[in-house]
Structure formats: C-alpha cells, structure tokens
C-alpha cells in the first residue's frame, strides 16, 4: 500500500501521459515468453521476475486496469492491477534495479515490441513519484546544477587539459601539438565523459593524438564538455532537456560542423537520437561518434596505423546504446581490423550482443551492485570463449563494469577504449603537419 498522493500521481500519469507507442506495445504482448532467455538477468538468475515480459507487465497491468474494458470490469481475468495493489518497491526494483534497458529483448521479441522503451516509460512514472534510486538521482542532479555529472569546475578542467597537452606534446615530440579549448569555427567539437578528465584522462590524450595525426581542426569546451545525459537513464525528460540543450547551444555558439561524442553509449544515443525530440528541433550540425571520425581518417588515409603494436588478441564489446539503439555497428570493426593484429569477434555480437550488465544507469546505482555483477555472467562467458586478452569497449560505462567483472570473475583481461588502442598503433607523420593550421578549406 502506498500513499494516496502517489496513487493520484500514477493515475494522472496513466490518464494523460501514455504515448501512442506505449499503448500499442502494451496492447500487443501475448505473454509467449520467448523473450525470457534473451535477458542477461534471466540467464544469470533464472527467476521468472527477470523475464522481460514479466517486468513489462508491471506497467502493462496498470494500463489494463484503467484503459481496457475487461480490466475495468473483471480485472483478475486479464491480470489487471490497480494502483492500490502496486508495491512501489517492487516496481522500482523491476524497472531500475533489474533491467539495463539494453534492448536485447526488444530485438528478440517475437511480436516486435521495444521493451527497453517501455521500461523507460515506467521509469518516468517513478520520476514523478520521486522514487529514482538515490545514487542515480544525485548524478542527474549534479549534472543539472553544476554543468557536468562530476561537478568539475572550469578551472579544474582547463588545468587538466593543459597538463594533458604537455603530455601530448611529449608523446608526439611536437611542442606545437595542441588541445584547443573553446575554439570558435572549429570543424569538430569533441565532448567527454566527465570521468575522463576526473579520473581516466588517458583516453583524452589518445583522441588528442589521433586528432593531431589527422590534422583535425577540433576543440573542446571548457564549460559544456559533458556528453553524458543520466536523465536519459532516470527517465526524467525535463532534466534531459536541460542537459541536452547545453551541448546544442555550445555547438551552435562555436559554429562547429560536427559534434563528436566520446566513446560512451548512452551519450551518443541521447544526443544523436533522443535530443532532437527532447528539444523539438533539428540540429544545424551533425552528431557523430568519435569512432565514425576515426574510421573516416583511416579510410581517407589521414592517419596510418601499425597493427603489430597491438599483438595481443583483442575482442570487441558492443555497447547497447551505441550499437543496438545507436546504429554504430560496423565502424568499430573496421577500425579494429586495421589497428590490431588479432581481432576475435565474440558471439553473439552486434545487435544481439549481451549487455555488460552496467547499462541503464546500473553502474551508478550502488543499491543494485550485487545483482549487477551477477547479471554480467553472460558477458563473462562470451569474453572467456574468445580467449582475448584485451576487450575493446567503446563505452566508458561498459569499461568500468568490465573491469569489475574482470576482478570478480578473474578474467585476466584489460578493458580499453578503441581510441587508446588506435593511439598505440598510430604512425605519426614524419614531416609533421601543424594541427593548428585551420585553413577555411579544411572546414566542411
């Protein structure tokens, strides 16, 4: 039993905020159960509450109670449940703690329902009830109030970038190598996951090195650098809008052609696919994953790589929001085939790949940490079977989860970004180009 105020909010939501796509979906599930073993939670824990259809039924049953004839007249017949029967704890656990919204079940649904979408719609209700797990909510709040989800101050970022620039200059042996900040008229605005400047800056140096070698005209923003959007995870569209608008404004202010997103699955998905809808407008610039740029540099011959620099067997993890929901599927393979000498696919892969278990905001939700690590079993098995020593994971979130799985299951692997792998193999041009020659012809 929950407070009547909550009941009212839920009823109000069900009455006014059910989008068309959701209604179609909840009217279509036939409870065939074929989705069961497409879910990494169910594979790891074999409990019926981990079956995607069971999970979605928590919302569908509410819908049936108030939106279908039989549900109103004889609720037990169709399993329709009213708000008074709802346990908020179970509902929250089901949609936040026991689902990474990876969409593997969506791809495998025998009918063709986007279950990941439904789960986010369920999360939206919990946003209104203030039931988002605390740790996830506080990451969203940080982003909204401070401009990035780790509360990095502008001077902290610029200090870090200067330091990284010195490192870069040493590595490439060129004092003119730069990491440009707030450069108007650059072709590419590169955006980061705050954990990079805060704790893991090697991936920034790697990308800077690639940009340097390609002679790209690029820039970082010292204030609006955060590519992530945890409000996508929490289901809070209002916050998502605030966060997304900053990036769009920044790209427009600097007048760039391309907003390039760091190796981060949900960030790419949010800004590439969801933000135009959140903000209700089409962007005047392109949104690309940094992987797409790297692949372009390789095929245009703007950078060259020596695969022998990466001789250990490398496998590839497909982040859900980048691949299954983002459509960036082949470029990472294209890159790895050139940058490493022993590339092994894991199976299944691409849109059928298993979630690492850390998606959907789960990595930040300590509340569900234990289950998250159990749910990573499918991924662990996949990796084991490849015999790879390095797992290339174009998503910082996945990398953290993979590192934890590595520790818990003693995989003996290293999880790395693709940028780092490419940077290691980079052949720097002998007669070095000056990366700061940004003739207008390079733009566009």
């Amino acid at each position, binding site marked *: 039993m929950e407070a009547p105020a909550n009941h009212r909010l839920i009823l109000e939501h069900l009455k006014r905020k059910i989008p068309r796509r959701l209604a179609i979906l909840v009217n279509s599930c036939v409870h065939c159960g074929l989705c069961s073993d497409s879910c990494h939670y169910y594979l790891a824990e074999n409990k019926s509450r981990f079956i995607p259809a069971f999970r979605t039924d928590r919302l569908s049953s509410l819908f049936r109670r108030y939106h279908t004839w039989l549900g109103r007249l004889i609720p037990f017949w169709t399993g329709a449940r009213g708000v008074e029967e709802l346990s908020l704890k179970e509902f929250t656990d089901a949609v936040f703690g026991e689902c990474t919204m990876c969409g593997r079940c969506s791809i495998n649904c025998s009918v063709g329902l986007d279950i990941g979408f439904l789960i986010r719609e369920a999360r939206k209700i919990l946003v209104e009830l203030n039931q988002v797990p605390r*740790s996830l909510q*506080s*990451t969203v709040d*940080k982003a909204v109030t401070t401009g990035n*989800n*780790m*509360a*990095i101050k502008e001077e*902290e970022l610029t*200090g*870090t970038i200067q*330091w990284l620039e010195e490192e870069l200059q040493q590595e490439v042996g060129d004092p003119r190598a730069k990491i440009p900040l707030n450069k108007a008229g650059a072709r590419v605005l590169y955006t980061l*996951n*705050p*954990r990079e*400047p*805060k*704790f*893991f*800056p*090697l991936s920034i140096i790697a990308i800077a090195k690639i940009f340097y070698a390609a002679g790209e005209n690029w820039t970082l923003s010292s204030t609006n650098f955060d590519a*992530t959007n945890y409000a996508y995870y929490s289901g809070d569209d209002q916050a998502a809008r605030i966060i997304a608008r900053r990036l769009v404004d920044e790209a427009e202010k600097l007048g760039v052609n391309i907003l390039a997103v760091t190796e*981060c699955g949900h960030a790419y998905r949010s800004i590439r696919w969801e933000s135009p809808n959140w903000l209700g407008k089409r962007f005047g610039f392109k949104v690309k994953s940094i992987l797409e740029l790297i692949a372009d540099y390789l095929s245009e011959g703007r950078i060259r790589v020596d695969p022998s620099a990466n001789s250990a067997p490398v496998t590839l993890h497909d982040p859900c929001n980048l691949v299954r929901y983002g459509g960036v599927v082949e470029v990472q393979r294209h890159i790895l085939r050139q940058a490493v000498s022993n590339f092994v696919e894991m199976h299944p892969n691409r849109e059928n790949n298993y979630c690492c278990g850390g998606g959907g905001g789960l*990595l*930040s939700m*300590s*509340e*569900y*940490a*234990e289950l998250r690590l159990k749910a990573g079993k499918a991924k662990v098995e996949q990796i084991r079977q490849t015999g790879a020593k390095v797992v290339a994971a174009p998503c*910082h*979130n996945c990398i*953290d989860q993979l*590192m*934890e799985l590595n*520790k818990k299951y003693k995989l003996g692997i290293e999880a790395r970004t693709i940028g780092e792998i490419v940077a290691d193999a980079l052949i720097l041009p002998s007669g070095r180009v000056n990366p700061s020659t940004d003739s207008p012809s390079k733009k566009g």
Partner: protein
Amino acid sequence: MPFIEFKGKKVEVNEEGFLIKAEDWSEELAKVLAEAEGIDELTEDHWKVINYIRQYYLDHDIAPMVRLLCKETRFPLRYIYQLFTSGPARGACKLAGLPKPDGCV
C-alpha cells in the same frame, strides 16, 4: 544498510563497500578496506595517494582531479592505476573513506 565489523563496532558502508560516513575512517579501517579490494599490503606509495585524497576531501568535500593527485604525489598516472587496479574512484577514493563519487563510476 550493509556494514563491516571493525574493532567490535559496525561501520556502515554502501552496497559497494564505500563508507557512508567519511568520519568513520581511520588508517586501521583503510587496511580492512584494502583487503576487500584485493590489496594485501598498503605500501608507502599507497598511503601517499590515500592521504592526499583524504585531506583534499576534508578540505573540499569532493575527490581531487587525478591531475592534482599526480602533481602532489609526483606519481605518473599509469603508476596510480597500478597501485589501485580498480582505478582512482573505486579503488583509491574508497580506501580514503570517501563516499562513492557520482557519475560514471
């Protein structure tokens, strides 16, 4: 809320072993946390990192940027990753008694 037994007292931690109250921290407790992290012995270098993070947190209420950590300890970045294999956030910050940082960690 989960807890760890320490000197006959219960110390509250979150589900991932981060302290709930930073003031519960002590050097002895850090050693217990290190064991859970799979670090058998805390060397002088470990302590240098831990103490810096701890002090910075007490002064600023947030973990330091890894740049400051490198600068103050004079350790190269890669060495810090070697010392704390779970990384600065899940490794070093945890041992320094900080609550789990927000964001993608």
